[in-house]
Structures are given as structure tokens and as C-alpha cells.
């Protein structure tokens, strides 16, 4: 029966060429769940240090960096084997970080210490520590690498760091409990989400002036529960997908008009997200329900929930 034998081979060939994985940190399981972006199933689970949150890959994806908050370290893992290669000095309680475009320096928010730590991943040494506001969390670096941003949850500011001097050159107020920051449109805009304020503030990077403020109105949900946290842009920054925390929705925001076009129902207390290779699918971490929602980006519909570990938090894509 030759035709039947050929069938599996045919299926394998028909898979999209951009197969990949979404790596999800499970804050209260001390593990990473790895989801295959084609089969939408957890294919591996790796152990990490205590309370893993922020996660990011090196440019060539040969290393994965993990904030192990309660172990007070950033772990460097070999993504092929799941083996921890070494720890980086990170300062206390690292929560989020961002890799500089030079692929070498990590900018780390030390939540309990009101400090941003800059670590050289090659020499494994702390290059600088910068005093910022209380409970730093959101981290971003401009595409040209010249500006780093730390947002502080209790001081309610975006702190602008000159990466040349490693010093603050501006501090701009945002609404309560800023959580996440991203540069957009080739580094001309900075977006900052405010969890308790319920808004995203858009800054003009050249002047650090507020350019727009985006608010959200999820039908039948009290505004207090609409708490923007993580967000990601589609290619060309035409749209942003914004996690709205305990409202259990993700908003789709138009990058030009700053208007909300759609709200998508996901799991409970949605935190962060990552796209697959061709940006056709979005994977959101849902802290309270302990799962990941897969959104079909084209139709803006949730298509699957994938059970992961306890309190999934960060997400990162790997081809």
C-alpha cells in the first residue's frame, strides 16, 4: 500500500516553513513550557531558578536569558538542551530585562532595589547600576541602541537612560503602575502601559513629550479591571496587541490612529505575549488560568488554549 506510506511524509512537507517555538516562563512552577507553534502543544518543559519571569533570546537564538527573580539572578540557558550554562550577576530580584541591539548588554530592572543594572553578558560583569524609581519593571531599548527605558511601578515614571553615559537624562510621569515599555516606528515613539491607570501613554522620543494616551473600554467589564500590561506590535507597527490583565481580554490598537479596534477574549489575568515566525498567531500568557491562548491574528479570534505551568508570565519566540 504505497500511497498510505506516503501520507505522513506529505503532511510533514505541508507544514509551514517557519516552524518555531514559544517559550513561556511559569512564575510559580520554576519552569519553562515550550510550545510548538504548529502543533500548538507543549513539547518540552525545562526547570529554571526560582520565580522565572522575563525571558529573551540572544540574536542568533543560541542562548536564552531568564530572569529568575527569587534566585536573584539572570540564568543563561542552552535552548537546545535546557541546560543552565551559567548565571549572570543581575542585582536583586530581576523582573524584566531587555537585550541591547549590540547583542551583548542586558538592561535589567531590579524590582526590590529601585535600580537598573547593566550587565555585559560576555565578561559576565555589572557595567553600571542606575538609580531609578521604586519597583522598576518595564524595560526597552531604542532600535539604534542609544536610549534605554525603565518604568517604575510605584514612582509612576518612565526613566530615560543615555546608554553612552549610563545616566538618566529625562523622567516622565505616566499613569499609575507602569508595567511595560516598547519603542515603535523606528524608535520615534515610546509606548508605556499603566496597569492601574488603565492607559497606554505614547511619547514622542525626540522631545519626550506625551503624544497620545490610549484608554480601553471593554464591554461589560468595570474599568477598574481593565489593566494594560504587556503588548506587542505587528510588523510595521500598524497594530499593537495589548494584554489587559484581569479583564481577560487583549485589545487590538491601531498604531496610527491610536484607536482600539477590537477586544479578544483570552484566559484569566493575561500578562505578556509573543508572535510566531510569520506573525499569523499570537500566544498570550494567562497567569491565573495557567494557560496560553492562541489568537489567530488575521481573524482576531482565539483558536486554542494550551495548559502550561502555574502562573505563566513571560513569553518569547524561537525559530
Amino acid at each position: 500500500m504505497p500511497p498510505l506510506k506516503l501520507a505522513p511524509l506529505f503532511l510533514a512537507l505541508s507544514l509551514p516553513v517557519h516552524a518555531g517555538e514559544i517559550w513561556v516562563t511559569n512564575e510559580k512552577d520554576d519552569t519553562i513550557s515550550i510550545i510548538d507553534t504548529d502543533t500548538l502543544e507543549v513539547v518540552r518543559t525545562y526547570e529554571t531558578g526560582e520565580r522565572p519571569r522575563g525571558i529573551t533570546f540572544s540574536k542568533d537564538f543560541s542562548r536564552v536569558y531568564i530572569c529568575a527573580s527569587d534566585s536573584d539572578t539572570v540564568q543563561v540557558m542552552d535552548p537546545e538542551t535546557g541546560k543552565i550554562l551559567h548565571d549572570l550577576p543581575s542585582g536583586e530580584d530581576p523582573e524584566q530585562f531587555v537585550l541591547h541591539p549590540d547583542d551583548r548588554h542586558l538592561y535589567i530592572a531590579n524590582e526590590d532595589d529601585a535600580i537598573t543594572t547593566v550587565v555585559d553578558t560576555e565578561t559576565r560583569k555589572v557595567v553600571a547600576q542606575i538609580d531609578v524609581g521604586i519597583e522598576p519593571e518595564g524595560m526597552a531599548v531604542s532600535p539604534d541602541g542609544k536610549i534605554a527605558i525603565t518604568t517604575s511601578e510605584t514612582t509612576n515614571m518612565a526613566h530615560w537612560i543615555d546608554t553612552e553615559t549610563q545616566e538618566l537624562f529625562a523622567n516622565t510621569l505616566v499613569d499609575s503602575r507602569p508595567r511595560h515599555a516598547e519603542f515603535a516606528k523606528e524608535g520615534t515613539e515610546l509606548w508605556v502601559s499603566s496597569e492601574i491607570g488603565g492607559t497606554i501613554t505614547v511619547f514622542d522620543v525626540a522631545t519626550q513629550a506625551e503624544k497620545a494616551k490610549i484608554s480601553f473600554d471593554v464591554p461589560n467589564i468595570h474599568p477598574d479591571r481593565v489593566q494594560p500590561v504587556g503588548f506587542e506590535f505587528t510588523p510595521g507597527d500598524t497594530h499593537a496587541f495589548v494584554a489587559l490583565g484581569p479583564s481577560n481580554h487583549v485589545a487590538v490598537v491601531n498604531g496610527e490612529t491610536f484607536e482600539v479596534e477590537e477586544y479578544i477574549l483570552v484566559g484569566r489575568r493575561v500578562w505578556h505575549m509573543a508572535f510566531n515566525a510569520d506573525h499569523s498567531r499570537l500566544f498570550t500568557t494567562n497567569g491565573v488560568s495557567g494557560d496560553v491562548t492562541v489568537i489567530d491574528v488575521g481573524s482576531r479570534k482565539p483558536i486554542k488554549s494550551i495548559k502550561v505551568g502555574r502562573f505563566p508570565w513571560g513569553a518569547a519566540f524561537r525559530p
Partner: protein
Amino acid sequence: MRLLAAICAFCAVANMASAEVAIRIAYLRVETSRPPTLSNLDPIPDDLGLAGARSGLKENATTGRFLGHLYELEEVIVSEGEDTLEAARTALASTSFILLDAPASTQKAIADLAEAEDAILFNTSSGNLSLRDSDCRVNLLHTIPSDVMRTDALVQFFVKKRWSDFVMISGTHSADKLYAAAMKRSLTKFGLELRAEKIWAFDADMRRNAAQEVPVFTQEFGDYDALIVADEVRDFGRYILYNTWEARPVAGSEGLTAVTWAPVVEQWGAAQLQTRFREEQERPMEPQDYAAWAAMRSIGEAVTRTNSSNPQTLRTYLLSDTFELAGFKGRPLTYRTWNGQLRQPIPIVHPRAMVAQAPLEGFLHQRNEMDSLGLDKPESQCKAFEE
């Protein structure tokens, strides 16, 4: 003022002349005698409340560093028998912002001082309902929840559990009586009632014989869904648990409690506040610490957003729609414009974990679900806040 202990805390920030905005805040505590309790397992910290103010000051100062705002805390402790109003007048001569840790009647008297007319006072210690009702004062805001906010929270939990048959043991101290009254009011509000109440007036040492006395004392209640304990001075309540005739849950001042804050609150970033407080103050954060912290942070938030230290500007901002305090309780905290009470979720806890947080799901409100806790606008007899 020889009897007054006024300490300049954080004198490092005392160089106020060079700042764009400098703001001094006083914390005024009136020492009161506490009734003796059967157990001394939980000593009351000497810096109760004050530690919360210090913690909040530090947070304000960090934000202020980036904005050219300087904050200073003056700590005023009035011992028993000293002239409280004189101490308040002295404090008011140098600041318009005072965090009060004092009995309700004293707070009212301070608010009525001519010197306090344009001041903003924060009640950080008294859950007395009348201060949010007919005895409210326009210059007195409340960061500590009223007793009724706490009992409403617990009763929402009873409703959710479909418990309907309640009995209560009440202590004899005035705080116990106020709590018992608040509990009855809350039961009525949510359509429940108290079937029986007994007064605890024993003078025995329960550490030795709770196992003998409590079963007999509770036997005549018969069966019930939950036993409520009104023991706000924490005298006998701890000996009721597991000693009742019927094996039923205990709630109220002991067992399942509805509180402003507790060490077991960890969600919504609370773990960070708890860690920060524990490291700085070397003990867990208690409800009164939270209330003082929230008052201090309210001032800080208002100064940050208005870039002003003018009491009138700050008051207008505090009571406006734009004010919101990130209070680590999962929702933005705001002030009720009809009586100055800080709206806040109320954790329902036992010593090892948070069981639920009120307002519970399903308790809806046309304005804000948090207004299902405590005196709502139509109920409050407070007129002072009406323009």
C-alpha cells in the same frame, strides 16, 4: 510644649528651601490605654502606624527626587494626660497635612480647631462609622476602612457561601460593641440576620481552661452555619476556635477575618510592598501601617500630579476623578466624595492565606463595585462634603 516629643525624621530631606515644592507632613499619635488581654502572644508594635508613614514618605521622596519635590515627616507623640489639642495646634502651625492616630472623638476635636480649617487631616486609625456619617468633617479623610466596610466584606462572603444561620459572641469593650453593631448592620444590609448573641464577660484565664468553658458556653446556640466573634481588642476570641460545641467556622474578629491589610496579602504586587516594608521596618505590615502608608502616598500622588503643595489644590485633586492610588489591592483606590472615605477592596483572610477579596464577584453597584462596602452615598448622613 515641653511634653511633646517632636522628632524630625529623615532630616536629610530637611533642606527644603532649594526645592521647587517642599511639603511637610505630620504624624500625630495620641497614646491611649489599651485594655488588658488574656494572651500576650501578639504585642502591639511601638511604631504601629508610624512605620507605614515612614515607608510611604520614603516612596514619596524617591519620586520627588526626580521632580524637585521634597517631603518631610514630623512625628508627634502625645502621651496620656497631655494636651492633645495644643499639640495639634503646634503641628498645624508648620503643616497643613496631618496623619492622625487617635480616638474618633479626638479626631473630631482636632478637625474642629480654627487652625485646621484649611488643613487636610487623615484618619488612619479609627473605623468608627459616625466619622463617615453625621459626625464627618470636611477636612478629615479616612484611609482606614470603616468597621462597616469590613463587616460588609465578611457578610458578602457569607452570602456567597449561602450561610444563613448566625450566632455571635461579643466582648464588652466599646470597640467590640461597635464591631458587633457594624456586623448586625451588615447582616441586615445583605438580607441576613443574627439568630442569637451572647456576651463574653468571663474573667477566667482561658489559656488554661478554654477547652472546658467554650464548649459549654456555645452549646446552647444549637446548630448554626457560622459563629461570629466580636472581639476587637483581641481578648478571648483566639480561644473560641476549635473549642465550640458544634464544629462550625468562626469568623469576625477571629478565624476568618476581613481586614485592611495582612501579611498574607500577596497578589497585585503586594508581595513587593510587604518585602519592602519588612526590610525597612523589620516587622510585617499591619492594617494601621497600611492606612498611614496610603495617606502618605495619597499626598505624594497629589503633589506629583499637581506639582503643588497648596492644601486647597491638593484637596481638590484628591477628591477628583483623576486621582487614583495604586494601593496593591488590584484596583485603583479613590476617595468617596460624600464622606472622604478611601474606597478599597477588603481582603478576607485567615492567618495562612487570603480566602477571598471583597467586593466579591456578583455584588454589583451602579457606580463602583467597591461602594458595595461601607456607607454608600444615599445612606451617609454626612453633609459637610456637600458644596
